[in-house]
């Protein structure tokens, strides 16, 4: 594993993220932080979408629930950051397993719709759930940043942690792809029934993939909402983010590892520019839509597909 160049390419990418802001360029840090979040979401989505071919429209539900659990543990129960994150991650993975049990027997379109249903049901429920602040959400006191050395330092620590999570997501994606489990998922993506007939334990693999793809986004969500010291249903379960994750994964090239990462980075840069450009503030989604339409119709393999066809040698180095 360590001899494969791609392993080190990932390591370099992580290092770049960590070092670029020099511990002082806040502007760059904020921009890279969002890119890291997108990369994390897209890479984990890829496990279901790119490998097994199951479109999870509601993948944001993991991010949001992770955020809620973490903020609740820290705010109401007074736990520290590390335990809150870990337990949030585990709790959401378990929840994903439970949801998965129900919806993973669905295929294609029905599955996609069901994931939307799950996200909306969870959002509607949390909106009514008073211990979690209902529709107002939970606010954290700035004092919670003190154990991390004050707000300024805490923001840096959160950033490094998110970069780490991003890195783990990329590695997870990589190891899964190279493993027997990953092979099973890919075969499910190609032809689920044939895979089942050939002995791939499809229900178990799907459930595992769904659950695994929930763990890291949950932790990322916990970090993201802890940073904002605030979580509310409308933000936590915003379908726009999972939409963007899908666009990013398709844009970059589903089923590859570099694809979602590349797509996420490009999309984030574009988005950042659109965010503040007065004329184009609402165009973010138009651009996303046009991109997606073009990709789906003409280049379903995404950017990586294009690169691989142009330079086939890349396949040996990248994944």
């Amino acid at each position, binding site marked *: 594993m360590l001899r494969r160049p791609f392993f080190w390419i990932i390591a370099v990418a992580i290092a770049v993220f960590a070092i670029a802001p020099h511990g002082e360029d806040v502007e760059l840090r904020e921009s890279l932080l969002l890119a890291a979040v997108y990369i994390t979401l897209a890479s984990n989505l890829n496990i279901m979408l790119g490998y097994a071919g199951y479109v999870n429209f509601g993948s944001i539900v993991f991010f949001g629930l992770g955020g809620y659990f973490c903020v609740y543990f820290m705010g109401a129960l007074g736990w520290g950051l590390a335990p809150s994150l870990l337990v949030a991650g585990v709790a959401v993975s378990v929840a994903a397993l439970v949801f998965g049990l129900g919806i993973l027997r669905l295929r294609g379109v029905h599955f996609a719709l069901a994931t939307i*249903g799950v996200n909306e049901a969870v959002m509607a429920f949390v909106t009514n759930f008073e211990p979690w602040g209902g529709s107002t959400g939970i606010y954290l006191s700035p004092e919670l940043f003190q154990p991390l050395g004050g707000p300024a330092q805490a923001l840096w620590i959160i950033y490094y942690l998110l970069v780490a999570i991003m890195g783990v997501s990329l590695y997870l994606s990589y190891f899964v792809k190279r493993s027997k489990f990953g092979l099973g998922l890919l075969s499910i993506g190609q032809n689920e029934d044939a895979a089942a007939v050939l002995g791939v334990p499809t229900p178990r693999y799907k459930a595992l993939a769904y659950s695994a793809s929930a763990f890291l986004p949950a932790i990322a969500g916990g970090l993201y909402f802890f940073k904002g010291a605030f979580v509310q249903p409308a933000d936590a379960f915003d379908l726009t983010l999972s939409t963007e994750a*899908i666009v990013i994964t398709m844009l970059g090239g589903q089923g590859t590892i570099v694809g979602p990462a590349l797509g996420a980075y490009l999309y984030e840069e574009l988005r950042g520019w659109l965010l503040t450009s007065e004329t184009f503030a609402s165009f973010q989604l138009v651009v996303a839509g046009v991109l997606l339409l073009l990709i*789906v119709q003409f280049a379903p393999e995404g950017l990586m597909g294009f690169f691989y066809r142009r330079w086939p040698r890349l396949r040996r180095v990248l994944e």
Partner: protein
Amino acid sequence: MLGLAASLLDGVLVGAVYGLAAMGITFIWGVMDVVNLTHGAMIVAGMFGVYLLVAASGAPAYAALAPVLLAGFLAGVALYWIAIHRMIGRPPLMSLLATFAVNLVLIGLGTAMWGTALFNVSVSLPGLSLGRYTFPGTHIMAAVLTAVLAAVLYLFLYRTRAGKAVRAVAANREAAELVGIPTTRILALSCGLGVALACVSGGLIATLFPFTVLSGDAYQLKSFVVTVLGGMGNPTGALVAGIALGLLEGLITPFMPVSWTLVIEFVLFVIVLIAFPGGLLSLGRRRAVR
């Protein structure tokens, strides 16, 4: 007790319009196996269509529905050619993403043009009063018009040649092609019909409640819930399921905070998807082949 009856009755009225909206989705789904995720944007287009026509010409809102219906039909045909034609026969996922993409573009453009301000079409229609409760005239009118449109659709499907062709393509596209039915044209026609239904239901909703460019999403979700309840590809089922959903809402709201209705609806949605993929109405009859 009267309160409950009033609630239920109002639920039926509004539910009928939800059913109409859902018919748009289920129709396209049934005929070409495509889930039309631009549905929400088309509903909003219908809303704005009625609003703009009323604002520009001062005509009564209901008169504006006819041009909206027509424009919706044309838009649907256009949608077919832009996003769906290449996706026929490909994995349904692709058409899902393609229509989803068009939806993003339309909503984005709409937001750029009209912002997210609230718009309102004012319709003054005397309501029906029962005791202390009043049924707004708009609700009654909307339900009546829905019934009319549903009847027209039924007549089209079962009493015309074109309708027969549509049903043939829905049943088996390759076979229909083999017997000489111009499938591409029929598919485009069906798409036009589905979108027309979406637009006109949007126009009707505009007479009931205020709306923004983003309202489409909520109604699209509701349409999906209704579609799933009624059985994908089953227009009658959609109408019945819409009314049933309205009834359910009317039943819940007097007893629980109104905000719980959404939770119940979505949980129901997921359960029905998992347990009754043919819709609740399939329990009584044999399942569709699809």
